[in-house]
């Protein structure tokens, strides 16, 4: 199954042009070179995976995409244009949403509020209107609430809607985090180990969500994952990193057969 542009995509989805391109990225922390001259791209509508051993620099790469780290060298191109230095919140407003490796939810807030924060980039009512809870602010709140409820339904977390996040078990938190990212209606969704700490059943659920998002909304997804089953089954293309270098890039099948990748990461062929 190959689409017209010659890139593989499962399920006959349309994969468009390059959405984001990383060009010769290098990232240093003092003496540590976390990323060493890596280039790769993410195409519109695809599911792109980044894999590699622990400490390879995967999360750091994601952090660069979302603007949290500024690369020491190299450029980030978004929709074909070089992205100027931006604060993370500005990057988020360009339609990039993400989840975190060590869950970063707002522990003191309920699930509903957490997901609502995901929509903040879309909210515009002024402070005065909010203080009066009247007119625009109220209408906006209700409209967004409706959208958020859809996402909550979609993620099947209705029953914990009003629970403070701090009390939730790990797996559910991961789900809430995904819901929060989805609420932003991103064009690029970055997932950092979305299935860590889950059992098979839960991974299956999560996979379902990811595929559905990708399918229904056409959201581009870039994910880091250590479960090779998941990576190989879900992704269209895979980048492999090792100690800051890129050692492979291609379809799951290509990567699976790459000897460097097997040596550095997989251990045994998957």
């Amino acid at each position: 199954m190959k689409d017209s542009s010659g890139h593989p995509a499962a399920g006959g989805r349309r994969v468009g042009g390059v959405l984001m391109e990383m060009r010769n990225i290098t990232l240093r922390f003092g003496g540590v070179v976390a990323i060493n001259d890596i280039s790769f791209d993410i195409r519109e509508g695809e599911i792109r995976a980044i894999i590699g051993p622990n400490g390879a620099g995967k999360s750091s790469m994601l952090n660069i995409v979302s603007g949290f780290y500024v690369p020491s060298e190299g450029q980030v191109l978004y929709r074909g244009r070089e992205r100027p230095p931006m604060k993370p919140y500005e990057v988020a407003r360009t339609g990039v949403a993400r989840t975190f490796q060590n869950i970063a939810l707002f522990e003191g807030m309920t699930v509903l509020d957490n997901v609502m924060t995901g929509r903040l980039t879309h909210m515009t009512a002024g402070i005065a209107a909010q203080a009066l809870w009247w007119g625009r602010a109220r209408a906006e709140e209700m409209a967004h609430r409706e959208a958020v409820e859809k996402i909550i339904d979609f993620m099947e977390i209705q029953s914990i809607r009003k629970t403070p996040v701090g009390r939730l078990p790990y797996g559910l938190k991961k789900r809430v985090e995904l819901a929060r990212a989805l609420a932003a209606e991103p064009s690029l969704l970055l997932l950092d180990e979305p299935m860590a700490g889950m059992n098979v059943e839960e991974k299956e659920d999560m996979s379902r969500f990811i595929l559905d998002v990708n399918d229904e909304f056409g959201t581009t997804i870039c994910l880091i994952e250590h479960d090779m089953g998941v990576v190989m089954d879900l992704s269209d293309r895979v980048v492999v990193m090792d100690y800051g270098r890129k050692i492979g890039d291609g379809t799951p099948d290509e990567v699976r057969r790459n000897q460097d990748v097997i040596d550095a990461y997989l251990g045994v062929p998957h």
Partner: protein
Amino acid sequence: MLYDFTVKPFADMAAAPDFLLQVLWEGLVSGILYALIALGFVLIFRSSRIFNFAQGIMVVFAALTLVGLHAMGLPAWIAVAATLGVMFVLAVAVERVVLRPLVGQPDIILFMATIGITLFLIGLGEIIFGGENKVMISEELGIPTGDFVFEPWGGLLILQQLDVTVVIVAALLVAALLAFLTFTRMGRAIRALGDDHQAALSVGISLQTIWVLVWFIAGIIALVTGIAWGARAGVSFALEVIAYKALPVLMLGGLESITGAIVGGLMIGMLEKLFEIYWGQPLLGGNTETWFAFVLALVVLLFRPQGLFGERIIERV
């Protein structure tokens, strides 16, 4: 106007160098005392992330106990030993009653709790010792009370022997503490505890033991500070306000750094005195010492948010 702020102060300094030296010395001595209070804070903060507001009152409490016990007829050095005993009991009580049930709570809650301890100790102290200003038993403790007089450049410089003693004792105390924290197993455990209570518990570090120990050491420091301040200004609850001065010292030096407490204390002591004498009094109506240290620390923090010697704030996702 501009001249008054920029040139004149320095001209004044150059015109009377002996006076400048005196100003710096006074600054140094108060700086050392601020640093001593800050030291108690640092130790407790390091081991528990508790911002111990009660350190100031512990100073007063220790000094009052010492004077009180002496007044009851105990010989000076026995009174010191007995006071240390009291500080130990206090450490145990704080750990039992307050820290143990509050383990793992947010920092701000523990901070509040130390304010609660402060109030409790103020009330208790006043009931036991009364509010009058008391004389520190400096002579009985063998602290010299005379002064050294120098005449540099034909001017006058007076150094109190008491102050010189304080500087020496403080230096020894700091050296001992640094050695303790760097070279011992306990020292490492104390730092680990500051990072993550739960994890520390899980590797078998006993919070109780360490906390009692740390609060006891803070109590010893409090006693030394109390003797030093008390010998200068008498012992009463009014001493407590001086404890506020330790806060900018901490901020400047870094909350978890012993070196920071010392360097911060000295810097603040001397700079605030210089500012007050050469800028504050002639130009701003005086009393700038109330805020100068804080503003100075604030400005430094804008460039180094963890203070000069504080641990890097780890920001990762």
